[in-house]
């Protein structure tokens, strides 16, 4: 029974294809087999995005001692639909001096990348749309594509705030791409595979990488870099509303604006899903619940943490953001590769000790080298 529920989506797809096979030729079945996965991803992703906006508003509301949306439907559950209708019916404003074609293309292109990367996420046992043997690289490579669309939008708007936002996004992406990829390298090193499915399989049975010394820190770095990649607080400089209004999407309205948001939320989901896949054991979990449930739960928790960040933290300044990437994350991830290699090389008790020592040393060194940037506690005088 548990097995059936676990594989329910896979079985449903197979049964559907079997039924089609009675009437249709083989090549159509082959096409349909591919198209079903694509169609499901394309249908699920916007729904996930819509309810992520609802969740974000709800959780932020609760953090701020408010209710959050609760008017449209029970618990405000229909709010995203109302928002969608509003977005669709809004006037589409294009600035007079904007580059019309690119201004139109940017929101179209920006959703492509986050939708593409969903293909290599293993949502459950046997539930991966395309098990590429370079899946991880595919994810990292395609997700860089988003920044180009983002810059297209910022440049085509002919708005100075947009341009500043685009510049920031560029600089930020370049800086955070490197520690992000480097923090993934230990995983590749230990599993010696680039396939996301294989990475999950290597962690089955509670051997999640987050429980290893190197994995815990790599997961932290990866998650923070991921937050930076998808432009969320405290790294939301490209759209910092208190400084540059709305950054790269200042000049967008209506559905085009919604597409920017959609891209952002789907990439948030995708990055959380990848973090789960790489470090939190993917769909691995106690067998009494289906594998896709565990994947969803873990992703949900990571998304909640991102929202929690947003409800608590102020954002960095540009130079601090860069400094953080280059002076803290980069050296740490480089050292972490070495530490992970030690873990893979040595037998059990020794590797644990070696890793602990290595991490302590690198953290201490980072603290010493960055002490000039670390803020100090202050004392205040009183006058009578």
């Amino acid at each position, binding site marked *: 029974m548990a097995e059936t529920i676990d594989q329910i989506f896979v079985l449903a797809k197979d049964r559907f294809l079997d039924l089609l096979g009675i009437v249709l030729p083989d090549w159509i079945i082959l096409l349909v087999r591919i198209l079903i996965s694509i169609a499901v991803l394309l249908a699920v992703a916007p729904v996930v995005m819509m309810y992520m906006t609802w969740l974000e508003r709800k959780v932020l509301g609760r953090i701020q001692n408010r209710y959050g949306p609760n008017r449209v439907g029970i618990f405000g559950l229909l709010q995203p639909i109302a928002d969608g209708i509003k977005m669709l019916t809004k006037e589409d404003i294009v600035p007079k001096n904007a580059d019309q074609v*690119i201004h139109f293309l940017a929101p179209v292109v920006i959703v492509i990348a986050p939708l593409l990367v969903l293909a290599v996420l293993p949502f459950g046992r046997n539930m991966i749309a395309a098990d590429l*043997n370079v899946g991880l690289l595919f994810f990292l490579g395609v997700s860089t594509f988003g920044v180009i669309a983002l810059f297209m939008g910022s440049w085509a708007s002919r708005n100075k705030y947009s341009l500043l936002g685009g510049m920031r996004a560029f600089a930020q992406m370049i800086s955070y791409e490197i520690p992000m990829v480097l923090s993934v390298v230990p995983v590749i090193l230990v599993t010696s595979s680039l396939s996301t499915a294989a990475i999950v399989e290597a962690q089955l049975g509670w051997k999640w990488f987050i429980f290893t010394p190197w994995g815990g820190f790599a997961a932290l770095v990866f998650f923070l870099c991921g937050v930076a990649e998808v432009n969320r607080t405290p790294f939301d400089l490209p759209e910092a509303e208190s400084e540059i209004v709305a950054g790269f999407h200042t000049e967008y309205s209506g559905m085009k604006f919604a597409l920017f948001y959609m891209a952002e939320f789907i990439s948030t989901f995708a990055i959380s899903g990848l973090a789960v896949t790489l470090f939190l054991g993917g769909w691995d979990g106690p067998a009494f619940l289906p594998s896709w449930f565990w994947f969803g739960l873990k992703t949900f928790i990571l998304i909640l943490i991102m929202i929690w960040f947003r409800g608590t933290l102020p954002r960095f300044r540009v130079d601090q953001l860069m400094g953080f990437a280059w002076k803290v994350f980069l050296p740490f991830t480089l050292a972490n590769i070495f530490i992970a290699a030690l873990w893979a090389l040595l037998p059990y008790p020794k590797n644990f000790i070696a890793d602990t020592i290595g991490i302590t040393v690198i953290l201490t060194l980072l603290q010493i080298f960055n002490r000039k940037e670390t803020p100090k506690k202050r004392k205040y005088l009183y006058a009578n």
Partner: protein
Amino acid sequence: MEILYFFAKTGFYATALVTLAAAILVVTLRNLFHCALALILSLLGVAVTYLYLKAEFLAIIQILLYIGAIMTLLIFAIMLTHRLTDRSVSQTNRQSLPAFALLAVFNIFFIASLAAVPWKINSASLAAKIDTQALGAFLMGPYVFPFEIISIVLIIALVGAVILGRTDQ
């Protein structure tokens, strides 16, 4: 199944066409940013071509490096050095016609030589899959020397960039 092959072939030619058309746009469009976008499209076409040739690793690396890194930097540089509203930059000058003629001559020879090469396909290379372990072994084994040279070049470039970007204190 033949029909699928037909689709695949059509797709390949379409990709090739888009790649070439984008490449032509790169050298003809008058706006630098548009040129950069066309170049991205062209590079993307190349990546898709790699996918057709079952070289997934290469295709992904093409996207990661050329589009993700190099084009990003290129656009950044364009933004920094040129004004926001610079709409047109002339792409032709007096030498373009002779250059075109020379290129045409060169291309005739190039295509002729390409056609002359017997491209052998053996089953072993078709079946080869990208294995991370093998890749690492190759980089650290037979190809360690070029690999290290590349890293030295990159480090030099990095140091140079740091020196250039440093402000006087």
